[in-house]
């Protein structure tokens, strides 16, 4: 059976230089692989894709479990953007096994990253 996971964010809005906090739950990790949570962005649109994992944390390696995580958003972004030629999207993803690539994504949650000071 393949591992299953879910991720819930405390807030779906985060500022540059701030943090994303949430909870993750997983099961079916029979091979006891490391479970990781990553914060990453990806572009869409007319240009070639830019993507990067900017923060990652491991939350366990048990067959099933749950845990909380905190991931730092870079101070210089980039911010979520929806333009004419390009879009930039952020997600928090649960990776089993923990990996910085897009392989092994068990669950995702969308996130909007805004400039610092935007939420005040």
């Amino acid at each position, binding site marked *: 059976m393949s591992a299953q996971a879910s991720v819930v964010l405390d807030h779906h809005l985060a500022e*540059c230089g701030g943090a994303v906090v949430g909870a993750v739950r997983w099961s079916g990790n029979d091979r006891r692989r490391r479970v990781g949570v990553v914060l990453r962005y990806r572009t869409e649109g007319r*240009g070639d894709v*830019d993507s990067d994992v900017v923060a990652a944390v491991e939350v366990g390696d048990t067959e099933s479990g749950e845990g909380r995580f905190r991931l730092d958003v870079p101070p*210089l*972004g*980039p911010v979520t*953007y929806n333009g*004419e030629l390009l879009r930039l999207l952020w997600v928090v993803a649960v990776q089993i096994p923990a990996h910085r690539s897009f392989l092994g994504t068990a669950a995702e949650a969308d996130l909007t990253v805004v*400039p610092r000071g935007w939420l005040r």
Partner: protein
Amino acid sequence: MAEVVVADRSRRSRGWLGIVLGGVFGGFGTIFLVLLAAAASAAPTPWFLVVAVVPLVFTVGGAVAVVAGIRNLWLSRVLGVPTLVLPNGTALSLGETVTARFHRAGGSRRARQAPRLTADLVCKEHVTYRQGTDDHTVTREVRRRELAVRDDQLPDSVSGQVTVAVPADVPPSMSLRHNGIAWSVEVRVEVPGVPVDTGTFAVVVLPQVSR
């Protein structure tokens, strides 16, 4: 942070680029045309006219590029170098307003008579994509906002104060490998009887709201 002086020397760069590239491509085209003409005179055939189209395009295109390059160099000499002095560096926050000094150094006396200054804050998206083995870049202007400009109205001088006001609800600069958002201040100088001169000065809009 100390003030930063940004000079737009792109006209001069474009001038030299036009002369060099035009000279190279036009030169090759001309040499090929001459060799073709020599071969055609030795053994005339109508096919030479068809073959001559390619080097002719290079020759004409090269000549146009050289002329445009020389014009840009001449304009650079006549108009001078547009310069913008930003009080706290080129990094600006969202919602921030700074007063920058614009002046044009050098240039002919005629290009300094009764100048009229206008300025815009411009935002452009740029993306690069690969098609086959070639990289293509597409740029699109997505925002343009007129800025307040106060002419110094000094005799024999092109200078003024530009109020650079960055709106709070615009996208900040972004510089990724294939995708980006670039901001610039464009200052346009109009002098009667002289070509319009637009100086472009890159600025960085940070992803932070001004306090």
